């Protein structure tokens, strides 16, 4: 269950975002991607998730290159981008049900997840009627559905209140404990035991 990156290079327009980047992410490790605005964190995360092809270089998961096993890789992966991926016109619980279906998880976990994330009283509210932070909580709920071994999260703490951030951190710690790997791009301090954390500063590549 190792994510390995070799000589990854990405150009956007006429400028290299990162050049010959290599690292390995073992289970029980969290890769914290840091760097100033616009240095390429989101781009890197998308490449790691297989959403974008890199300009050159290789990403492998358990020794297999990503593009050779997309659907297999997807069973292990949970992704959280800048956007939440929830339909405005569906209710909280409907969104979660569809997500459970989409990622082939058992639907019975949904109730407990809703409870944990603090959206139980809002389970029948349409997503467009949620506040910014409640939407982000809902997106986090996706991570807790079913099993996975790799989380890739882009600024997960956005809009969350203090309780929300604490909840997120405890979830992540638990996931790491159980042998998961996590990639996070973030500007905010992360309350997770330092022995899990492996840092990558993208600004340094320039």
């Amino acid at each position, binding site marked *: 269950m190792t994510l390995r990156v070799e000589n990854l290079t990405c150009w956007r327009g006429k400028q290299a975002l990162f050049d010959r980047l290599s690292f390995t992410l073992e289970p029980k490790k969290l890769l914290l991607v840091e760097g100033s605005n616009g240095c390429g964190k989101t781009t890197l995360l998308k490449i790691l*998730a297989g959403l974008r092809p890199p300009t050159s270089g290789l990403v492998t998961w358990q020794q297999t290159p990503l593009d050779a096993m997309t659907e297999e890789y997807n069973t292990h992966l949970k992704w959280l981008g800048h956007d939440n991926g929830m*339909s*405005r016109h569906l209710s909280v619980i409907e969104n979660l049900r*569809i997500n459970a*279906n*989409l990622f082939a998880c058992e639907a019975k976990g949904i109730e407990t997840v809703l409870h944990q994330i603090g959206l139980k009283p809002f389970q029948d509210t349409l997503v467009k009627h949620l506040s910014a932070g409640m939407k982000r909580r809902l997106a986090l709920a996706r991570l807790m559905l079913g099993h996975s071994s790799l989380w890739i999260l882009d600024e997960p703490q956005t809009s969350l209140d203090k309780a929300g951030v604490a909840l997120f951190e405890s979830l992540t710690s638990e996931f790491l404990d159980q042998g998961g790997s996590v990639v996070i791009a973030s500007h905010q301090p992360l309350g997770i035991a330092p022995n899990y954390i492996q840092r990558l500063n993208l600004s340094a590549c320039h």
Partner: protein
Amino acid sequence: MADFSFFILMQREFKIASRSVQQFLLPISFFSLVVLLFPLGLNPSPQLLQTIAPGILWVAALLAILLSLDNLFREDYEDGFLELLVLSPRPLALLLAGKVAGQWLIIILPLLLIASLFGIFLGLPNHSLGTLLISLLIGTPCLMLIGAIAAALTVGLQQSSVLITLLLLPLYLPVLIFGSSAVQHASTGLSSNPQLYMLSSLLILTLTLAPLAMSAAIKISLSQ
């Protein structure tokens, strides 16, 4: 796992549609708009109206579907749901096919109802009404599927609606020509079977190829 995938997004479309009756009003409202504009804009004699009725009905159906395409993937793109689809372990082609099928089912029933109603009002002879319905039933899935490819290719682009129209103009012509000439033949008493066969073979072609094309197009659109 694949067997069930088709129904996930289909069910989702139904859920979203059931939120507002308006979704079901789309074909009715746009179709009525186009069909009503003609008698008013042309101020024609009943006879003239009857002659051009098949064409008007088919063009109106085509435009109604075209209108719905612009929004097919837009919201899903903007709220990040398309990314989730691509990252799901289920086959993307099937998921998307389910979505399009759902949209089609939502549109088709009201469309058929209103088309037959207007058919009567426009003075279409009774025996060609059946042909109208059948041709719409075979032709509209083609229109939806071909349109969905164009929508997938242009998702996230500025001015996607223009691009869609441009892309589709040549692709839609065969469907329109076979469809409306089927109805015309029927109303002049000729057999409309040749046209209906052509439409059916177009349908089979798009049914097999469009889902694959769509999923490739979505992946390309997202990777920029």
